[in-house]
């Protein structure tokens, strides 16, 4: 053991032994957390990527989802993810209402860029304060039958508190992709993203389509919120920490591409996991955002962006 001359507070140490199990575990951990990132980001991919609505309050809706899952889990013992699926229609309705206000007050008047952003910032802070007033400021978590269980297969760990959200997230993302590419409504949403005027000429009301798509994006926040409270304890201001992440995933994957969001999230997850394991966790954000910058430099529209 010796201290380096440059930083007297730190010690140098021998490099760790890199084994195949360590590498495989890093990949699996990265994919699992990437699945969670995908669920958190897919709503923003719809609202920001497809609809041009900079919903910076999306993490706040995720937190509302966490707290609803928490309260039902705490009182009745129901599984938080199941609860989130049941209450997602309420989130859908909430999304419809919020988009209506946003459209009438900002988008219709052409003031959506700056004032719309302020509107969503306002929602973010109001939601946070409301959660503080209703639930207090202590950390909350949900307990499930699988939270503390880890499957171990050939030296590879599969903690179920990450595996279950990952599996549901994959199903949700795949479902959304099928919905957007194989239904009339889904294709109309994609058309809104490309040319609203053309859509209007086809006899479709783009405002209605945007409202429904925005509502769908808010509905995904309910499920992502349940994942969050299964994975880690939450308190009302934790949503702010996800603002950068969700927009980074969205841009990395390609604006408005659901598959792109999934790939971006998985890439970010694996990059973070590898960096944490082999380089040092404090480098993880630098590597992730470095990856984002490199992607944008060589492919400005993101991995699957058009």
């Amino acid at each position: 053991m010796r201290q380096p001359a440059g930083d007297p507070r730190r010690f140098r140490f021998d490099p760790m032994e890199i084994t195949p199990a360590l590498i495989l575990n890093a990949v699996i951990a990265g994919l699992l957390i990437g699945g969670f990132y995908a669920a958190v980001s897919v709503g923003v991919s719809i609202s920001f990527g497809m609809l041009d609505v900079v919903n910076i309050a999306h993490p706040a809706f995720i937190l509302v989802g966490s707290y609803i899952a928490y309260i039902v889990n705490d009182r009745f013992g129901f599984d938080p993810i199941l609860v989130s699926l049941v209450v997602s229609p309420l989130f859908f309705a909430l999304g419809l209402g919020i988009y209506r206000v946003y459209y009438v007050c900002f988008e219709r008047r052409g003031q959506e860029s700056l004032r719309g952003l302020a509107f969503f910032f306002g929602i973010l802070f109001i939601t946070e304060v409301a959660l503080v007033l209703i639930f207090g400021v202590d950390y909350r978590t949900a307990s499930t039958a699988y939270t503390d269980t880890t499957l171990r297969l050939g030296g590879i760990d599969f903690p179920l508190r990450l595996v279950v959200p990952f599996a549901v997230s994959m199903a949700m993302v795949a479902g959304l992709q099928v919905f957007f590419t194989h239904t009339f409504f889904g294709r109309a949403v994609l058309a809104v993203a490309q040319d609203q005027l053309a859509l209007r000429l086809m006899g479709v009301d783009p405002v209605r389509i945007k409202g429904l798509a925005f509502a769908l994006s808010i509905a995904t926040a309910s499920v992502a919120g349940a994942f969050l409270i299964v994975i880690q304890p939450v308190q009302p201001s934790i949503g702010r920490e996800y603002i950068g992440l969700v927009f980074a995933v969205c841009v990395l994957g390609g604006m408005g591409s659901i598959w792109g969001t999934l790939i971006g999230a998985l890439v970010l997850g694996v990059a973070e996991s590898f960096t944490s394991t082999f380089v040092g966790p404090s480098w993880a954000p630098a590597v992730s955002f470095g990856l984002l910058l490199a992607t944008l430099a060589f492919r400005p529209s993101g991995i699957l962006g058009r």
Partner: protein
Amino acid sequence: MLVKTVVTTLRRALGALFIGLALTGAAFAQQPPTLKIGFGMSLTGPLAGNGKAALIAMEIWREDVNAKGGILGRKVEFVYYDDQTNPSTVPGIYTKLLDVDKVDLVVSGYGTAVIAPAMPLMMQRNLTFMTLFGLNVNSKFNYDRYFQIMPAGPEPAVGWTRGFFDAAMTLNPKPKTIALVGADAEYPHLALEGARTHVQRLGLKVVYDKSYPPNTVDYSPIVRAIQASNPDLVYVASYPPDSAGMVRAANEIGLKTRMFGGGMVGPQFAALKTQLGPLLNGVVNYELYAPELSGKFPFLDKFIARYQERAAAAGVDPLGFYLPPYAYAMMQVLDQAIVATGGLDQTKLADYIHKSSFDTYVGKVNFAKNGEWAVPRVMMVQFHGISGNGVDQWKKPGVLTVLEPNAYKTGPVVAPFQDARK
């Protein structure tokens, strides 16, 4: 005739009003002004749980003092603002308290991150500054009117971490290697600094020494990297969400080491105690109070019962073993100093606090030259026998072994960690 009557009546009414006002004013003049104490407190943001708990304790103190007639005959009034756990709000809050609200005294909010930004202003105004749970803040400022109520001792970073290493050195054979890990934040950096001092003192070999960003979601890659370096001891300095993440990851991976924990903030509070439940078994971590020691702090038990009544309604830590007694004690020190010096002269207050001994709910408190506790009293405990996630098991003796300091020791450390977890 009618006009004359009206004028006379008006004159009489105005006269009566004037006399009434004069008498009311005299009555007001007899009431001494309230003694205003100002502070910022984290009522929202990541440390709001602790901030609100501290506020409850301080309000209990204010009620107690006012019930006895106040301090020097003046009722105590609090003026406080939410610092949002955001250090950048702190200088503005204290400037407003001093210049606009004209408070008589100021004390700090909770934690290192919000105490440090208030220090330049306190020094500029030569104010006596009682602070609540800042770790090693005065090492950079060397301010002679700074006082701190957390019992970390005159070398806070060293005193804070000593118990973990002293307990580790009781293991047979003695540990040789250690992993150090903590969040990229003020407190973990300072705690790790203290840990490194002990590492050098004891000649341990460091096999891992890294920090992680505070918004990390999954801690398993970190714990796996620690496991790959195969340390005898793992010292963790973390805030509540990452403490939960580290403990979960250590259990999921089945971390094999001899002692795990040390400086994790969070397991002192009911929220994490109940969330993690049996996952905490085997973890060695710091505490400032244990129900096992209730006989040694008889006044504290009464206070905790009063605190717990209010905490449930406020949605904050329902146990209140960690921070609230010290928040109350901080105000007791200030109270006793004001009474003894007979006023609010900042020089006299600071001098008195330096040279006096204070009887508080957390015991006798003496301050060292740098404003820290003269003798450290951080307890290192090991969790064991926790079953389920109920809160009641934490209210009574049985799930903690006090390892350090020796004066409070209730048993030896159980190692290795994987056996102690069972």
